[in-house]
């Protein structure tokens, strides 16, 4: 059970948050221009890394804000949290 440092609220228990999967997957601006394969790449393909992973998290039972988090999935160490739209840190 992690402690997550919400960029808006500060440190809170993991039970207040929900994970929204891989971060930095941008919804295509012109989906109709895409082939089935390209659309499927956006829609279905997600990384499942053992190690440092960039994830979306939502402070669901708090400020309800979405933000990004860098987590090492092998030991749950959280390397960084940053707001939506901010540049991902280099880890």
């Amino acid at each position, binding site marked *: *059970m992690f402690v997550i440092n919400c960029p808006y609220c500060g440190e809170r228990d993991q039970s207040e948050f929900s994970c929204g999967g891989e971060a930095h997957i941008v919804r295509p601006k012109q989906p109709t221009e895409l082939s089935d394969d390209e659309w*499927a790449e956006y829609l279905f393909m997600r990384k499942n890394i053992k190690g440092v992973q960039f994830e979306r998290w939502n402070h669901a039972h708090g400020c309800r804000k*979405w933000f990004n988090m860098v987590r090492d999935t092998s*030991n749950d160490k959280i390397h960084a949290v940053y707001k939506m739209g901010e540049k991902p840190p280099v880890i």
Partner: protein
Amino acid sequence: MTKYRINKTRFVDQTKTVSFTFDGKEYHGFEGDTLASALLSNGIHLVGRSFKYHRPRGIMSCGSEEPNAICQINDNTDLTEPNVRVTEIELYEGLKASSQNCWPSLNFDIGGINNLISPFIPAGFYYKTFMWPKSFWKKIYEPLIRLSAGLGKSPTQPDPDIYDHKHEHCDVLVIGGGISGIISAKIAAKNNLKTILIEDKNILGGSTIYQNNKHFIIDNQKSNEWLMNEISELEKLDNLIIKTRTSLAAFHSYNYLLAKENISDHLPLVKKNDGIRQRLWKIRADKVIVAAGAIERPLIFNNNDRPGIILANSVKKYLDFYGVSSGLNNIIFTNNDSAYETAVSLFEKGISVKIIDIRKKSSSNIVKNAEDLGIKIYWNSTVVNTFGYKKIKSIEIMNLSEDGSNVTGNKHKIQCDCLSISGGWTPMVHMHTQSGGKLDFREIDQVFVPSEKSENHINVGSCNGDFELEEIVKNTNNKVKKFLNINESGFDKISVLCSKELEKKNIWLLPNTISEGKTKSFIDFQNDSTAKDIKLALREGFKSIEHVKRYTTTGMATDQGKLSNMHALGIIADTAGVKMGTLGTTTFRPPFTPLTFGAIVGRSVGKFFDVVRKTSIHEWHVQNNAKFENVGQWKRPWYYPINNENLHEAVQRESKTARDSAGILDASTLGKIDIQGSDASEFLNRVYTNAWSNLGIGKCRYGLMLNEDGMVYDDGVTTRLGENNYLMTTTTGGAANVLSKLEDYLQTEWPELDVYLTSVTDHYSTASICGPNSKKILKKLFPNKDFSDEAFPHMSYQDAIIDKIECRIMRISFTGELSYEINIESKYAKSLWENCIKAGEEYKITPYGTETMHLLRAEKGFIIVGQDTDGTMTPIDLQMDWIVSKKKYDFIGKRSLYRSDTIREDRKQLVGLLTDDPNEILEEGAQIVSELDKKPVEMIGHVTSSYFSPNLNKSIALAVVKGGKKMKGQKLFVPMENKNINVTVSDFIFLDKENKRINA
């Protein structure tokens, strides 16, 4: 005093007698006893039967690692609990314990027959034997297994006890109140750190507290006396919380730990009644110091499971802590020095003791001490067999060969009534690994020790692999100081003297003269798996420790293999000829010891189990005999029976009245989201499949929301309240998820949109009135309003006032009838509802619930998201092409609507089904087939909604069928258990295709 209570100690108050029963017979012990020590003081070793072979089993240890001595307590009362370790129950007045797993009685057990046929029950026997024939399973195998399997009995009554949860934060949490835990806690607390020390026993001190041997001296005192002083000092410290009777259950990441405190388990029955029984502590600690200690290992030899065979240090604890001698004619069988402390202690109390040591010699102080006392020691020897059915009577020993792989010479028989065994020590690394820590294997004494990488927890004492008193004290002091950044402690100048073990030897499976197949060398005592089983598993090709474990069930009993895992690993390594460190270990999962369900759920029982949401009209529903249905957390009226109507009768009446005259539905539970901002219209364009920019103010529109994969996600009517203000409604169950999803898109994909979302589900309540007379009722309620179709058309809304209270009236239809919804602030909703009922009285208005609503919608072919859809239906599948905008460039899910998979023509599509017999009602969920003779039967769809329609006077159903769009008129079958129902595919709109009723 009984003849086995041979010693007075400060831990057991021999002036206070406690009576208890075991298997119905009354016995006496003293305050401070455990059930185990009290039984042993009465000379009782046999307490249970083993799981598979039903062999007689006795008390083997003195703690949570106990595999054999588990019992049922307080049987036939609502307080009964199975599988309780007798070594952990503190004795209390009135305790009733009974043995488990034996029928008809402990002393005569019919399952013991398994012991005689055991050559035929090898590892994997159940897997291999009960696989076939299939027909045997239900009638023969299962009842047979059920009869003889299982441990204790589950309670049949609700648990009367109260359980509690508590959150706690601290700077330092110390797990374990033995000598290293006490040193750690003292250093931490003295340095102004808020410290918690938890200990699972009722008294601090671990095994040092009863260590009174002259070879173990700290600061010129016997180690137990030194520790006693330390404890009394410790108890004076302000910023230290000491929690005894509290055991660690789980060590999660980020130093989040669960610990269970026993509050009333040790109290006499009469005092248990009203308090909290157990409390689960949820602790977040900045730093954790694990001082969990070590568990003594058994030795693996033939017939090593008889009652009277006990771990050596446990024998010492029973003697020096409880004053009970486990036997009067003792033999100690060991591979290490620690068992000599037991021998010396027994000898000093005048009890006969001999030692068998697999080593050739040992030159430590404690061994010299034993030799000087004249205790007989058989060096380089091993036990090859034991005798005595219900209690050990004698053993046979032999000499070991030079390399220890075999036995030589003659067998030598020795009488005894207790055999103490010691195979060395296993550090309790469970906590460390639960937290994510890894282990290193230490070759010299064959132990796994923590490999420490975390900055936030350390292991000290014997759980860290420090077994000798001097290294325990000194290493703990140094390590804790470094961990907590402390320069000096009160333990820096401490002097420690102790016996040091110089010769080490370990044989995982001791050799024998008879072949392995004929021995019973138990590794997992509770699950009855033997060395032979493990070797069989290896021969059959299992290699991974995790597989061997599951195949042989080693380590899978309620003790989770605390005593067996290391030997299983060792024997696998030896047999496979690999180094033990390379095999890894099985995973140690929480909880460390079994938790009660009560402790896990705490106060969340009964009406506190889950949140219950009620509408503000709920009381009226209750008073009017509504039956309720759970929809998410909501209690929604299901139907309102009159007199003794059943569900079907009530729903038929409600549905008929609603279409013939008037009906009223509490629609308050539908999700309501207030949408504001200059981009609100654009936002709706993107989230719904249809167009929204052209919706006039004061108008309403039905919308369908998809997931990005094109599947229908939610639906509802949204009303334009103002230029930049909409009120969206969602399904009852989908409300929270829809809001989350919309927020997600707004915050992450379209942050440039000026849109704000607020859930107003609880703020407004809704009465929905439908039926041909609804307009007349509305006129009575709002006499000043013009309800003509011109002034107030379908799909529009107007503000209104009732009883001086503002409300909104939407002319929208849930049911296909002429219909109005009145939205009002929730606190006025009940009064509004009562007004509606009163105004509708002359039209015999009927309140109706969710069942009638579903029926009315099904008649019109209106889908219910979540009932007629299941996350795999596109709007095209639902034949709702009309709501999918062709003009809009993009909306959520649009691109997915023409993926190769979603344009397949044989997808499951929504159809209507009519039964050939109009009185036959299909079962929802029933499968649909087109060819009855085809093998295997191909299921082409299933029924999603099915009712008898009182308005059409026939059975109707909605279904999804592969390629159903093109099957209109086709005959299909719905096979049931005892018949096949003939159906015909029809249009899915059964009633009023022309939509005339909306403007009736």
